[in-house]
């Protein structure tokens, strides 16, 4: 009798603790979510009236009602393109090498520690590195390519880590099966490991890109301009060879810089512009994340081990 009483007391205490933890958890979640929702709604309220087609097709202007984000969104898009084209091949290749090829020795361990640490380096440090290396030593100027390379460095650790995690999730039996059929290591990787780990890799890439898209400090450090009323030259030209890489060397501005510039203006009307541009940036980020989720879902559906 006494035993079951104390047991009951223990159980009810444990249940109470359980309840307290759930309540705390929900409170924390509500606090975080409602802060975001409040900020988001405030932004929508301030910015929605400015969101019309011409906002996307006009350059910046000293008159708030005439100002748009054309240079900013095109700049952000071009920079993201360079970032992805540089970071994805290098990052994925590094991840594959470290997971499938690298011998387990001290050098590999050192590289791994470094990559994990790089993921935690503040972004301004990458900006300073890029200023010294890309802008001054290589003479690339404050251009789309410099910004793209800088942000590529920034997200490289994220891509590498995500690639490795995804590759590690592929069961060893798949590799053994490939070897058993006489596949070489590269055939095993390219035919099996890579396709199976693709959903995870893509998720990592897009998380990396959505971090890069909102970065302000490094691109300010390399000297992105604030006012620019022209677009980078078109990558497609009318004369042979029909492809031009001049846009890489073009000066640019980006969404976060445009937003920051507008919030620091004296005229009140620019605050609405800043909210509208911030809204566009948030939607761009959410869209990228949505694409990541959709791709993961679609690609996973094709996997049947």
């Amino acid at each position, binding site marked *: 009798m006494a035993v079951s009483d104390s047991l009951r007391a223990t159980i009810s205490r444990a249940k109470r603790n359980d309840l307290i933890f759930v309540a705390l958890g929900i409170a924390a979640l509500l606090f975080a979510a409602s802060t975001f929702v409040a900020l988001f709604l405030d932004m929508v309220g301030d910015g929605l009236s400015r969101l019309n087609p011409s906002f996307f097709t006009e350059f910046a202007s000293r008159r708030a009602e005439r100002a748009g984000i054309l240079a900013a969104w095109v700049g952000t898009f071009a920079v993201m393109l360079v970032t992805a084209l540089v970071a994805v091949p290098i990052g994925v290749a590094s991840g594959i090498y470290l997971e499938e090829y690298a011998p387990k020795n001290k050098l590999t361990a050192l590289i791994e520690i470094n990559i994990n640490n790089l993921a935690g380096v503040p972004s301004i440090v990458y900006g300073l590195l890029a200023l010294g290396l890309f802008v001054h030593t290589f003479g690339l100027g404050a251009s789309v390519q410099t910004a793209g390379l800088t942000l590529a460095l920034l997200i490289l650790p994220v891509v590498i880590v995500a690639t490795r995690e995804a590759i590690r999730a592929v069961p060893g039996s798949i590799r053994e099966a490939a070897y058993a059929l006489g596949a070489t290591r590269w055939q095993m990787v390219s*035919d099996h490991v890579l396709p199976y780990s693709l959903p995870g890799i893509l998720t990592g890439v897009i998380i990396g890109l959505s971090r890069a898209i909102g970065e302000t400090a490094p691109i300010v450090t390399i*000297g992105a*301009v*604030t006012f620019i009323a022209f677009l980078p030259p078109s990558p497609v030209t009318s004369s042979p060879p029909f492809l031009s890489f001049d846009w*890489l060397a073009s000066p640019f501005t980006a969404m976060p810089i445009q937003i920051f510039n507008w919030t*620091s*203006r*004296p005229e*009140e009307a620019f605050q609405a512009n800043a909210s509208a541009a911030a809204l566009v940036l948030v939607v761009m980020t959410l869209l990228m994340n949505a694409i990541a989720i959709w791709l993961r879902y679609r690609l996973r559906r094709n996997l049947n081990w």
Partner: protein
Amino acid sequence: MIRRLTLAVSIAAALVACGEQSTETTPSAPAAPASSGPTVITIDGSSTVYPITEAIAEEFQLANQGKVKVTVGVSGTGGGFKKFCRGELDIANASRPIQKLEMDACAASGVKYFELPVAYDALTVVVNPQNTFLSTITVEQLKQIWAPESQGTVTKWNQIDPSWPDAEFKLYGAGSDSGTFDYFTEAVVGKAKASRGDYTASEDDNTLVQGVSQDLNALGYFGYAYFAENQAKLKALAVVPVAGGEGVLPSEETVISGTYTPLARPMFIYVSEKAVARPEIKQFLDFYFQNVSELAREVRYVPLPESAYVLIKQHIDENKLGTVFGGEPATAITIEELLKREASL
């Protein structure tokens, strides 16, 4: 299976394509002059001068239908001069004259320049609109409030003037990286960058506007444009330049007449000699001085008299390089004095 194969192939193709892309990115770059192509005019520097130059750049490109491209950055006066003296810029915006160290840097790299004053700004001292006891303040009182020695010891209004209330004041001012901070401390305390540290400092003047407008015991300073756009939320103080004098409110008239002193300050653009040789820069400068009166006023700065712009443009035609300030900080310079100095170049 086929699907997987195509996926693998497309990835491999993407990898190859990207590999080519990224190798092409780096070596091709030095060949293409990144910062100053033949038709791009690069401008950078002070955030205070930015609104004027931006307005000019905007109108210039509209008038040109985009044939000549202009970019304007905001690196601060010091940051702008650093790039300018490395030869990376055509034009530097500056909210103060070039300093000795910067002159040396320019000389070392062989960058010669024209110094062209473009307009005046009135640093405005503001309090909360509900503040009833303050409408005039002397420079001496401002010095008492802002001097580094006052930190922690002078904290109440009645320590400055016994007739003011026995309440603690709260201070709002420019962050230590801005030209505004350099100028205000030089003009009020007497030494550039000498300021107490226990105040709300921000590079974003809207933060200061918010702070002063919500705090009954606030006192702050920033450029006139931010006061002009927020007149309902702020009250500007008349500044008494010398003991026993009259208080003067900031306005276009008082800046032009030279009575609003020492907080009226000239703003400049510095143009490199090499850049002026390019026809599109000449065209841009002509456009600048034709329109700066109107556009400076639109963005709430005080333009110089028309005759002054004629004189200033002659510097270029007569090839008068260099600065009239000798690398020294200059405060309390009226338009008249500025023009006298410019004429002596």
